[in-house]
């Protein structure tokens, strides 16, 4: 192939340094160890870097708080999430209701705490979903090459060409939810929509990463020793090519939480009875001029969560990418 392989090369360049990372890690010792000191792997090195990075510590702490909030909302508030008092409708923040009350008279503080669960669930599940599909498709295409690669790459092109928001609206319209639908099913529908449209990015990164690693000496050596393709992939290719995917997925997680909020804002993502930040923002948008507090608190929590995941991804990338040292 004489051309600079079109969109794929373009994409790996586009996702900043993450995808262009040279294959290092597990098999090759990084740097010369000092006498008497145990040689550290790249991962050990990265972990040491991370522990001393204040950005990593702050974002990890924020994420930990959000996850605890999602798992045990009862620890943060004693009020029931379903309790509404219409006489309190759109009351501003006070010592009684710290974040004020929304249109239905729900306590916004309680709703915001409980809203973490849906957002985090959508973010985590969508990320795991895109990683699973993307890694399998990317490894298959990159390792097999030939017509398999061509088919997977064209399929990736097809899905990549559809804007994620537009595609997600279509998928969610095909499987509409109503008040009767169980909460988890509504959440899983949004996850499915985001995974169907979002797997292409991970696939492309994984594919180009695998192609790089495939040519490494240790893979050739394993092949010469007669290792089966499955063993080569699991033992040698995967551990050495998955780092860019981990970085991008961490950053994507924040993006998925934002996408869920956008879909809910359009009235097509999560829907009541699910409590989520996106729904709260949607409700608040019509009363922005008179009761801005209804918008402020849910969007603040949403932004902080997205921010935490993006910062975490940045920190992990800086630690893993030797070029930036």
């Amino acid at each position, binding site marked *: 192939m004489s051309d600079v392989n079109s969109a794929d090369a*373009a994409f790996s360049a586009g996702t*900043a*340094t993450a995808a262009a990372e040279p294959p290092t890690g597990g098999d090759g010792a990084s740097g010369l160890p000092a006498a008497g000191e145990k040689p550290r792997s790249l991962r050990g090195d990265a972990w040491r870097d991370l522990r001393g990075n204040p950005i990593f510590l702050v974002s990890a702490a924020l994420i930990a708080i959000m996850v605890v909030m999602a798992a045990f909302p009862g620890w943060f508030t004693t009020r029931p999430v379903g309790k509404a008092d219409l006489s309190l409708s759109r009351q501003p923040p006070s010592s009684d209701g710290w974040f004020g009350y929304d249109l239905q008279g729900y306590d916004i503080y309680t709703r915001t705490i409980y809203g973490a669960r849906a957002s985090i669930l959508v973010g985590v599940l969508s990320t795991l979903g895109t990683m699973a599909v993307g890694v399998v498709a990317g490894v298959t295409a990159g390792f097999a090459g030939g017509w398999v690669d061509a088919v997977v790459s064209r399929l990736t*092109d097809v899905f990549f060409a*559809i804007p994620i*928001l*537009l595609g997600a609206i279509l998928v969610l319209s095909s499987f509409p939810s109503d008040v009767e639908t169980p909460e988890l099913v509504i959440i899983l529908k949004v996850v499915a929509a985001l995974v169907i449209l979002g797997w292409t990015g991970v696939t492309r990164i994984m594919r180009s990463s695998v192609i790089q690693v495939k040519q490494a000496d240790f893979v050739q050596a394993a092949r010469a020793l007669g290792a089966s393709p499955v063993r080569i992939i699991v033992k040698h290719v995967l551990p050495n090519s998955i780092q860019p995917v981990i970085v991008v997925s961490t950053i994507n997680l*924040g993006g998925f939480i934002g996408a869920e909020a956008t879909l809910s804002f359009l009235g097509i993502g999560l829907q009541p009875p699910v409590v989520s930040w996106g729904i709260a923002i949607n409700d608040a948008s019509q009363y922005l001029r008179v009761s801005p507090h209804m918008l402020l608190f849910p*969007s603040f929590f949403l932004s902080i969560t997205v921010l935490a995941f993006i910062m975490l991804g940045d920190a992990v990338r800086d630690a893993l990418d030797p070029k930036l040292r």
Partner: protein
Amino acid sequence: MGRYVVRRLLQMVLVVIGTTFLIFSMVYLLPGDPFAGKCGDRPCPEAYVKAQRAKFGLDDSLPVQYGRYLSNLLQGNFGESFSGVKVSELLANAYPVTMKLATLAILIEIAIGISAGVLAGIRRGGFFDNLVLVSTLVVISIPVFVIGLVAQLTLGVKFGIFPATAGDGTLYQLVMPAIVLAALSLAYVARLTRASIAENLRGDYVRTAIAKGLPRRRVIGIHTLRNSLIPVVTFIGADFGTLLGGAIVTEGIFNIPGVGGLTFRSIRLREGAIVVGVVTVLVLVFLLMNLLVDLLYAVLDPRIRYE
């Protein structure tokens, strides 16, 4: 070069067919009856529904319907909506507005994003660098619709700097929506440019240029910037399609009569022909932009050749 373009165009045909089929089958799956509520308070007479379904061929199987759509499309016929309006007409009304909005957004991205990225990249760790890093993080983490709503309320309603809505889609009205639409990508462009400039500044060719005694302005503006632009151009090229799609939110907030609103309404009304038409044009624009970007590489970096 010529052979490369032809090969890319052939690949593109495959992708367009795949994408339209995908969208077509999703629309085919959409639940509900497209003729519900079309006849006022009463349900539509059975004879009418039957005649309409026959006219649009809705009872045929998916491959048959898709084949018919594709052969019409090849003759330049986008079909018509259930209310009898030509889809090409709807597209011709909506696309120019959205194109204007997206182009404006791209220009804002290029102007502000690249200059902020360059300024931050040449002094890594300086005050301006940190300012750019922090402010882009803030912009990335706030959802677009919150930025849009707040901008509309403050800049539009309270201070009256920009028109609060853009119902006519004139250039002046579109400025604020374009800024909102561009905000997220602007932040990415700035960060990408920064990282790329900072990396390339360590290049041997930059040291050579400085050693030759070239003025700093030339070293950074010509030598470094040109080499750093490839990832940025890639991002902007791919972003044009995203902007067209992401316009759904911005157009909704600012009441802009563009593609986003048209698509959203059409999905809700099960107007399959409109949805598929919009997406087909969108995908075509997206693919052509990507081809253009790939050809731009050779201009930016002469080492890249297409043979």
